């Protein structure tokens, strides 16, 4: 009886998961249609795009901070590298007329640059652990900002302008779905299990034969790659970047989104980025006092719900389950596998 109940429940999930392609295609066409139809004004569209970018940022940081249980605070640094790389590419390298065509390439290149730097940072920094990793990544973020301020041909402290507004709703949608897809599949892959085992107990997972060094580096590089992607999108949405866009406050913003939504949860990252971005906009009439209230809320959240809203839990859609259709299919003896399970 119980089994049947569980089973119908699981079947319900499976049915709703079959809706996923429909939702994705529908969402994509909606993102195409929204700017053309006059349903929502451009301000709302802008907020939606910011949510998308923030989802990429928080999901990628969640990989290191939530799933792996390390504490990286330099995410904005990787974002800066992606933003500057992509902007320099679209403004000075790619032919001016065809910047739109090359835009995905530029964003991907920004991600790749951030990933490469992530590799360089990862090797020395994972010799240390815990608090010291926080310090290394913090120092890294400061160094990136300081280096950019000293490079004159990208504008130094004044910032870099000249990008066209190439980030559109469909692009944000595509990149967001892509990054969530990659991160979700990584987390539930063999490597992903390794990442979780590092969070639970690094020494034990080392003893079980998990190559923790390699897995840490992989997770860190992928995380910084997507930070770079988000940076590229951000730069071409704002059309103006300067080193101060990517300082420690930006990193703190991303941290807040991750810990608000919940660590170790992709659904949490989506929720956290959405709630935080919308809340900041809703509270905008309060002026500076909203920046007084936001951290207070964060402190209260940490006290009463230290793992965040979705902490360590997940929307069922993202969790790979048993292949339910396979369970339903009767085998040669005419019995379905679930009957066998029921004994």
């Amino acid at each position: 009886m119980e089994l049947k109940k569980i089973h119908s429940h699981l079947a319900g999930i499976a049915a709703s998961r079959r809706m996923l392609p429909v939702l994705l295609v529908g969402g994509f066409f909606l993102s195409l249609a929204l700017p053309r139809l006059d349903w929502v004004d451009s301000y709302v569209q802008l907020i939606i795009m910011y949510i998308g970018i923030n989802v990429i940022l928080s999901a990628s940081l969640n990989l290191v901070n939530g799933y792996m249980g390390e504490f990286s605070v330099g995410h904005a640094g990787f974002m800066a590298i992606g933003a500057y790389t992509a902007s320099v590419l679209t403004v000075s390298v790619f032919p001016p007329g065809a910047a739109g065509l090359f835009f995905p390439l530029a964003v991907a290149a920004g991600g790749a640059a951030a990933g490469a730097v992530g590799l360089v940072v990862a090797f020395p920094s994972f010799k240390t652990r815990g608090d010291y990793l926080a310090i290394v990544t913090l120092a890294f973020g400061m160094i990136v900002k300081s280096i950019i301020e000293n490079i004159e041909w990208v504008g130094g402290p004044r910032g870099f302008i000249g990008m066209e507004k190439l980030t559109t709703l469909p692009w944000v949608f595509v990149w967001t779905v892509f990054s969530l897809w990659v991160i979700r599949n990584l987390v539930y892959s063999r490597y992903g299990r390794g990442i979780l085992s590092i969070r639970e107990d690094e020494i034990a997972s080392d003893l079980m034969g998990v190559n923790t060094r390699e897995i840490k580096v992989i997770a860190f590089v992928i995380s910084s790659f997507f930070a770079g992607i988000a940076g590229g999108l951000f730069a071409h949405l704002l059309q103006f970047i300067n080193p101060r866009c990517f300082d420690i406050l930006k990193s703190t913003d991303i941290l807040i989104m991750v810990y608000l939504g919940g660590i170790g949860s992709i659904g949490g990252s989506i929720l956290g980025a959405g709630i935080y971005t919308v809340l900041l906009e809703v509270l905008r009439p309060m002026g500076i006092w909203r920046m007084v209230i936001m951290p207070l809320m964060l402190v209260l959240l940490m006290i009463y719900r230290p793992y965040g809203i979705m902490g360590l839990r997940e929307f069922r859609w993202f969790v790979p389950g048993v292949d339910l259709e396979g369970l339903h299919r009767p085998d040669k003896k005419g019995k379905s596998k679930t009957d066998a399970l029921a004994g």
Partner: protein
Amino acid sequence: MFYIIQQTLNALQLGSIYALIALGYTMVYGILTMINFAHGDLFMVGAFLCFVAATFFHMSFIPALLLSILGTALLGVVIEKFAYKPLRQAPRVSAIITALGVGIFLENFTLALNPYPRFIPPLVCNLTWTFGELSFSLLQVMIITLSVILMLLLDFTVRRTMVGMAMRAISWDKSVAPLMGIPVNRIISATFAIGTGLGGAAGMMYGLAYPVIDPYMGIMVGWKAFISAVVGGIGNIRGAMIGGFILGAVEILVAAFFPSTYRDFVAFALLLVLLIFRPHGILGKPHAQKV
């Protein structure tokens, strides 16, 4: 020659401020193994308290200093009681995030009350001695002397008094200390009071030395002081003092030979290099992880 002495004096002045702030980081870390990221902003509150004392109440140097120290110490204790204490059993990252949140709160609360950069009126008479090319001011001498006195006092407290012994006991083993009759909560409060009080004193001195203050001034100085604490070996009090002076010297050196925009870069690069070769800092002891 004069030039070198002049720069040494500047380095000592900056270094003593860094060292005072670094002490707050390192004391809290030693006892709670928690990085109090709001400490840099408590330093800023110290500077603003001094501004309020000097501008609105026309206090002189000593009362203003006392107000800065006591005010920030009280704030530190209150923050510990309301924000950090409920999280002692929570995952450590929650405590760090909370500290970041408290820091942002302090910055923006100050900004909301006071939207403009402020100028602290000079509290120390503007006396300058000149020997040839060498010139140093009364303020410089006062900052260095006062910081050294405060540091000696702290060192004495930690090594020679009952409270200090209790602090060391808690940082040695948090679970056994209460069994020996040590009032853990009170000692933690005392640690926060002393640590943030020193930060407040540093804030006041910084505000007198570089008189334009704004609510975000604590971020950069706070991180620099944090680097000092790590360089010296976080959790180690004498290490924090040494680290502060080293960082001050490095920054002055860099500013003397390179464009000043490279100052932050060099400070953080120094930290990275040090962490790679000596991850536990200069005076810190490496400890193996036990299973």
